[in-house]
């Protein structure tokens, strides 16, 4: 099944679609803005469906991190697959290390 739309869950959690790329960042930013205005501030991005990320997607995550730091808001990335984790580490381990939740054994 393709998850090509982000989905807002309860408590400021956004379920990402199957890709976080130049093609989806705009929609995801809009979804996050909707969450923030209607419910809670964004606290977690769930990567369970997300299998692909590119430079524009990683840039967007850095943008979210920067804002969370500026506003002292909690933020985490959950269910990050090893492939995406590897890609994010290419940007420097220090940037994402504190935000990626460790994978739990199923």
């Amino acid at each position, binding site marked *: 099944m393709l998850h090509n739309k982000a989905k807002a869950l309860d408590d400021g959690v956004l379920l990402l679609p199957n890709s976080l790329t*130049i*093609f989806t*960042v*705009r929609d995801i*930013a809009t979804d*996050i*803005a909707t969450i923030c205005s209607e419910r809670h501030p964004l606290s977690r991005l769930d990567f369970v469906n997300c299998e692909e990320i*590119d*430079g*524009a997607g*990683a*840039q*967007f995550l*850095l*943008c*979210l991190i*920067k*804002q969370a730091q500026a506003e002292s808001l909690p933020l985490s990335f959950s269910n990050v697959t090893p*492939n995406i984790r*590897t*890609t994010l580490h*290419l*940007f*420097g*381990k*220090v*940037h994402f290390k504190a935000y990626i939740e460790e994978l739990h054994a199923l």
Partner: protein
Amino acid sequence: MIGPIEIFQTEAKEHLALLESALLALEDDPNDLEVINQAFRSIHTIKGAAGMYGYQDLTHFTHHLESVLDQIRAGKITINSPLVGVFLDAGDLIASLLIDTNFTAPEHLCAEAILGRLHNIVGASAPPLKNSENASFAISELMQHKPAAGALNIFKVNFTPDTNTFKSGLDVVPILRELHGYGECFITTRTASLPTPQDIKPQQCYLSWEIVLITVHLKDTIQETFMFVEDDWAIYIDEISLHELSLHGKTEEDFHLREALASAQLSAALWVEPPLAPGSEAASSAEQFANPEHINATLAQQKAKTAQMSKSTNIDETIRVSASRLDSLMNLVGELVIVQARLNQFSGRAQNAEISAIAEELDMLTTDIRTETFGIRMVPIGSTFGRFKRLVRDLSKELDKKIVLTTFGAQTELDKMVIDKLSDPLIHLIRNSIDHGIESPAQRLQSGKPETGSIELKAMHADSQVIIEITDDGKGLDKASILRKALDKGVIQSNHNLSDNDIHMLIFEPGLSTAKTVSDISGRGVGMDVVKRSIADLGGKVSIQSRPGKGTTLTINLPMTLAIIEGLMVVVDKERYVLPLSCIEECIELPCKLKNNAATHSLVEVRGTQIPFLNLRGWFKVNSAAPPIEQVVIVHIGAQKFGFRVDEVIGQYQTVIKRLGKLYEGVAGFSGATILGDGTVAMILDPHALMESSQQP
């Protein structure tokens, strides 16, 4: 303007050509390290560029090829003919993927089959292929690769991508991945320019990077990573020596570096030498070296040297321009030449010294522009030779023959348009030599020839022409068989009395190809008649010399360019004609004794030699009275001399060649027409064709 994707495709094709030529060379000499490195560099560059443009399938595929080539480079695997075959097939697959880089299901199967073959050949001796995701080396691995103590290099790599990087289809992830692949990488992504999530434009890149890289690779290799973006991105790569470093610095970079050194324990392993004894020679050198003034002076020297080097590297800077723009430029130059001719005519009539001076100066400039534009369009014919080597290799394997292709004169330059159009006819002629010319190894041995056949491909300049020869040492043309087929097909009548050469030339007649030839070439859709026509379309000629049992030589004569030639303008009655200046020997006045000889063909004595000439008045059936003084223009056609009797010789003329069009294509004796300054048309004479036509009964 050429977009980045087109640049990638063009450069990838060039690298594939280099790869192919390297592989074919390695089949002959598997130990040539330089050629192995060339093959590796080609695949490495394609992989890097494919990754940058987001072609993941292609990147992954080429990564496996690169890994095997790396093993070959390291001497762990020896390249052999089957391995060359797999790499050649892989090159073909890559070439097909350049158009649509996403693998389709059949392409996936094809790629897997190629990789499967690769694994089978490489076998257990090869280490498992690396996955690109895990390509990063550990320092310990680096140390194992380190060829000699002290060979590890440290680089500061800072880069800021162009804002439109993502928009233009590029990505930074492959660059970061490649840098990781070079060694231990400490990356800081600068986010200062990032807007808020609401304001972010996904197509724009707001980030920049500061990287400390510890690697066995040299600066050139690191620079190659950025080769496709170096014009648009701000990139700084500096090698850091320990002497220049402040290990106690407090910047993030210093922190990274210390972290790197600590994690690798490099300071202990590599650079920390035992303390120098006070007063020793080495210690005094070290003190002198550590002197701040000395360091500053050395740094100043290094800066000057770097500036000089960067200046000198700019000398050979090149830009890539599409061929259509060059064609357009050539057309404009053609028009300029015509307008120039008009100005020259006007200035001649105007009798105004100032206008004449301007016209003369402009004439010189036009000539220079024309020469330069020609120069830009000229490319070495060797660029097409590479593909013929592959053709010979593949076809000889297919036909179970042993053939060596030798090429000469690869540097011979020819107009790009001519080269492009020449490729298919040449392929066809070489295929014919392989298929019909060279015998099987058994047949060759039986007839006392070496088992391996030979095909020679030669290119050379002669006057304003390029001559291409394809010579094989095969069985030669079978005259009896050609004659029989020509009679069967009704190409000739039984009472024709044909010379050997005439019989050989029959193979270029339509419908005369043998059934086997048609089947062999059906994929290309051309026959020998089409080959002849293609060459004639280029203003060239093809001829054959063949000896039974000894082999065949096909000779192609081509003009160097199809656009503009230097001509000699002559007048016959009221018409002006142009003869190619390159074949002109001299102009003489028609001797008085021949004045009243109105015959179309005659002989004129020039310094004791009788030279045949053609009276163009007679040839063109001009009935008006000839002028009191006539001229004979002597030309050379090959080794022969021949004359043309004309009314008047006007002089040298830059001739923009215009095709005659389909209606007049078959008219013998003319190679085209040109538009003169006053708008009238002058025919361009083809001396060779005129001579041949005039000598026919």
